[in-house]
């Protein structure tokens, strides 16, 4: 990942020594996260949406549902596709193709995390004829560090809010399959996200791991471990970004920490989403101001 901020050597030293003594520049300890702000169903044009803020990081996610034909290899499964876009508003270096590298990295991490974990059979309408395809579009509006975790949490929230149209009738007429969707837009099925994983990235700074890094801390780190953690504490994938290398033992430690943080974050996010659902459809909407 290209560096979003530059720091002088003494500033890096200051951050590094702080993390050594478990005291970060904003007073957090190594495993403390910043507060998260979450909001779902903020866009009418899509089937599910969410906006998430962590300090300066701002992520907008939209989920679109479209009809498709299942793959021959998996006739009874629907499809799930991720697309990430880094807005040049977030950082001028994302202009043109500048953000593509980071965007691909994040969308690959999401695909890896959701592969074999997310139940795609519920997206099937008629085996090997019709299925739903979910397009998950992620827009990074502002960068304040910790993009992987923020994107994954926003994606989970958006999937939670996704409503798939109720299929009234599906019939096979010769080779062509026809489906009839309910006319009532409120007649819909909620997507099940109880298995949806979150990404937890652990920034290796000095000899220690740090969760929820700020952009300044990310610059100080040589390697970041990104672990996909499911709500039950199992991991569904992992990757490493940055040029640094890790020992096997260090990697194991990272997964242990990620599991712990991941389960906790999952619980808190689900709690918030359920609370928001209780507010009902007439809750106040907050825009981008």
């Amino acid at each position: 990942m290209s560096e979003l901020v530059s720091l002088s050597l003494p500033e890096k030293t200051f951050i590094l020594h702080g993390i050594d003594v478990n005291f970060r520049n904003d007073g957090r300890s190594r495993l403390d996260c910043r507060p998260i702000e979450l909001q779902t169903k903020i866009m009418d044009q899509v089937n599910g949406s969410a906006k998430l803020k962590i300090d300066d990081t701002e992520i907008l996610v939209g989920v679109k549902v479209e009809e498709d034909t299942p793959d021959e290899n998996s006739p009874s499964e629907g499809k799930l596709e991720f697309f990430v876009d880094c807005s040049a508003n977030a950082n001028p270096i994302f202009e043109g193709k500048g953000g593509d590298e980071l965007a691909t990295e994040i969308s690959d991490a999401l695909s890896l995390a959701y592969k074999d974990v997310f139940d795609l059979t519920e997206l099937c309408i008629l085996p090997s004829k019709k299925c739903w395809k979910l397009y998950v579009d992620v827009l990074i509006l502002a960068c304040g560090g910790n993009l992987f975790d923020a994107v994954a949490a926003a994606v989970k929230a958006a999937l939670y809010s996704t409503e798939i149209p109720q299929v009234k009738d599906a019939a096979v007429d010769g080779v062509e399959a026809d489906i009839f969707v309910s006319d009532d837009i409120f007649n819909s099925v909620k997507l099940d996200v109880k298995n949806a994983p979150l990404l937890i990235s652990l920034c290796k700074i000095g000899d220690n791991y740090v969760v929820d890094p700020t952009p300044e801390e990310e610059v100080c780190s040589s390697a970041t471990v990104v672990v996909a953690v499911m709500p039950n504490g199992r991991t569904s994938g992992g990757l490493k970004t940055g040029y640094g290398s890790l020992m096997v033992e260090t990697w194991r430690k990272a997964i242990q920490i990620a599991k712990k943080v991941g389960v906790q974050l999952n619980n808190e996010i689900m709690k918030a989403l359920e609370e928001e659902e209780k507010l009902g459809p007439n809750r106040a909407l907050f825009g981008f101001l």
Partner: protein
Amino acid sequence: MSYTEENGESKILVRLANNRIDHTLPVQQDPRTAFYTPGEEISTQPDFLRGHGTYMDTQQVLRASVAGNLERVNKLISVRPYKTRYQGEIGDVVIGRITEVQQKRWKVDTNAKLDSALLLSSVNLPGGELRRRSAEDEQAMRRYLQEGDVVCAEVQSIFADGSLSLHTRVLKYGKLSQGIMMKLSPSMIKRQKQHFHNLANGAVLILGNNGNVWIGASQSGQDSSQGGFTQDYSRIDQENREVCARLQNCIRCLVKSNILLSDTSVTYAYEESMKYEIKELIQDEVQFNVALLTHQRLVA
């Protein structure tokens, strides 16, 4: 590596946007400060001089082109925008980051429209020698200041294209060592005679006119005879580190509630924040409470 000390539960806060905290303070609008939005009519009379941030439309009506305060000097009307890049003025204290090393000059990012220039001839050489800069000095430029370094300087002059020329010919200016740099809006800094503050808690606070704020960890026995080019990489003790972290979080509180930054407001916020732990200061409720208490002390 040991993670035994990290078993203490740390709480993750997830807030819904519906429960968002409003950071605006209960302030009475001063009737003298007229706020204009882009396109708003200022005057229809023709005998005004059109200043920055205004334009004359086809009906010869003077309108604001930016959002901000109206400033009037005799017949000259200008609107000073709230959100803007730094407009340099000679004599301002600025904090910037070196972006490029060129021949005879460094390019400095000072949050202005164009990168500012720090000429080799307008820095103090290490050891404080006074002489013409030779070719050897030019070759050694990167040894003095390199890309990414943070410098504190004064605006010496403004070039024809609007970019700034800086100088560090006084010992208090120069390269900054360990600490935290915060990038804020230039309009958040209160214009004052003094922008260098040695706070009672031991930290060094520099409120740059360009919106960059430096919180320096106090270092005893610093040798300034080297012209500030030597760097200290020693460990800062925990007490100083906590002061810096608290100051940074306090400044965030003030900025979120739009309180102008000065040594007074920062000190008040620091004192009011003492009842909280440092890491609590990243929570919105706490931030607003600190800002509110600071505001009450400031208006009292």
